[in-house]
């Protein structure tokens, strides 16, 4: 963990309210693991905003974020050459086992899974047919679909669903998830998205006997594990305990988290 000032090297608009920013930091690129996040200072706003690492290429890290309030608005206004004040890399990240991996992303929960897919994909990028990663991405509607092309460059198959049926398959991620887990043997399901989606994904995975790692969101202050504002309840050996999402997470085993 360190605090680093990083120069923005690229900015892209991925959807009406979704922006990608790439910035340079050799230090952070070295420690970054899929599923980890950064705490980025957003102008005058006191608290750092937690944003997942979506991609690491060389010394460049990319974050992808939705415009929600003042903090993400500030970030969206950054231009190439601006300096970001970043605390990173934070949290534990995904634990990617051997074997076939199924990543399941819901909306703006998709970015960290791209980094997980890339980490798991050991085959040459030109040969996605042999990739051991399959992705299911769910969005509200066609204009909200992001990163479909990027996932397609590292995954064997990418299934996209929209709630309103305007793109890909009509419905939620649950249907393709059920079908894939029935059809093939996966070593792990990695999921990130809204709580109701995580609950549904965990239920399906557990029913199929596949381990499921969920990446959680909680409001944070310190981002490093010192203040205890970001906890989630977990159950281990019948004991209820609080874990810090920023430090012990954000990725936790679905069987331990009380979702």
């Amino acid at each position, binding site marked *: *963990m*360190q*605090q680093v000032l990083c120069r923005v090297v690229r900015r892209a608009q991925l959807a009406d309210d979704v922006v990608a920013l790439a910035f340079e930091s050799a230090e952070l690129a070295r420690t970054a693991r899929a599923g980890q996040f950064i705490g980025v*200072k957003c102008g*005058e*706003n*006191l*608290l*750092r905003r937690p944003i997942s690492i979506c991609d690491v290429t060389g010394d460049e890290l990319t974050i992808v974020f939705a415009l929600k309030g003042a903090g993400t608005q500030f970030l969206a206004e950054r231009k190439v050459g601006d300096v970001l004040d970043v*605390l990173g890399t934070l949290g534990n990240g995904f634990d990617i086992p051997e074997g076939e991996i199924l990543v399941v992303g819901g909306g703006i929960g998709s970015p960290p899974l791209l980094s997980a897919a890339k980490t798991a994909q050991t085959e040459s990028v030109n040969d996605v047919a042999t990739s051991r990663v399959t992705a299911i991405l769910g969005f509200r509607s066609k204009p909200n679909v992001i990163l479909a092309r990027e996932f397609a460059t590292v995954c064997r198959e990418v299934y996209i669903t929209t709630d309103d049926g305007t793109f890909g398959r009509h419905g939620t991620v649950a249907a393709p998830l059920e079908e894939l887990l029935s059809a093939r043997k996966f070593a792990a399901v990695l999921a990130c998205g809204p709580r109701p989606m995580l609950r549904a994904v965990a239920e399906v995975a557990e029913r199929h006997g596949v381990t499921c790692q969920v990446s959680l969101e*909680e*409001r*944070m*202050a*310190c*981002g*490093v*594990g*010192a*203040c*205890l*504002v*970001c*906890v*989630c*309840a977990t159950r281990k050996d019948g004991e*209820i305990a*609080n874990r810090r999402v920023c*430090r012990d997470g954000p990725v936790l085993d679905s069987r331990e988290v009380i979702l």
Partner: protein
Amino acid sequence: MNPDMRVTIAGVEFKNPVVTASGTFGFGREYGEFYDLSELGGICVKGLTPLPRLGNATPRVAETPSGMLNAVGLQNPGVDAFIANELPNLRKFDTRVIANISGGTVAEYGEMCEKLSAAGVDMIELNVSCPNVKAGGLHFGTSTESVSSVVREAKMRSTVPIIVKLSPNVTSIADIARACEDSGADALSLINTILGMRIDTRTRRPVLANNVGGLSGPAIFPVAVRMVWQTRCAVRIPIIGMGGIATGDNAVEMLLAGANMVAVGTASFVDPLAPLKVRDGIEKYLRQNEIGSVSELCGGVLLN
């Protein structure tokens, strides 16, 4: 010549006048990854209770203009687990350790004081001002009688000096401060967080699961300076000033208002190195103004 940064509070010498504020620094392990904890004057640990506590539901934090509300609700592993698992690690560093405690009854404060002073902390801070839990919280710190009974019990059962942490959520901080001094408190610390609330206009629900929480950060700094000054006018015992300190200049202001030492809390969330920057800023001020010792600043405000 290097200015003398040492301060002595109730016979305990601190190598510099900067400690970390309770609840913002855990037990030191996390920020210990950013710098050597021996650089600090002292560490005040997360508030301890007799038994482990899970704390409140989440969200426990809400951002505010220049500040934040928290409602952690004293989540902690309990005093025994602290002594067994955390104190030995803290003791590896050349820094003072202050244990912050919250009891549900006067007797609980006494029991914890006995255990902690035997275990070898340098000082004990009585939290009689936590706005986030009903028991062990605010009510002890808001009346002169109840605060006196807690202080007397703590003094009787502790072998190390006692600090009383005062609440800003009172009508007259001077009255409470005097009651603490008269009951034998060795030092005071202030301010704890100011009770606040935020409401999400979309859902009409409070942002915090606990509905209300404690405000900290730069937003409360002027209130803290005023209360430290009022307290300094009321008592002679040492004061640890805190509330929104983010820079060396903020710290100097707090010392001039009457504090003998300062604590840095929320600023660490923004900049993990904040306590060290505050320390360096104080030293720079002393050097620039050719002041030989930091203790000369205490109460140095020139009133209009």
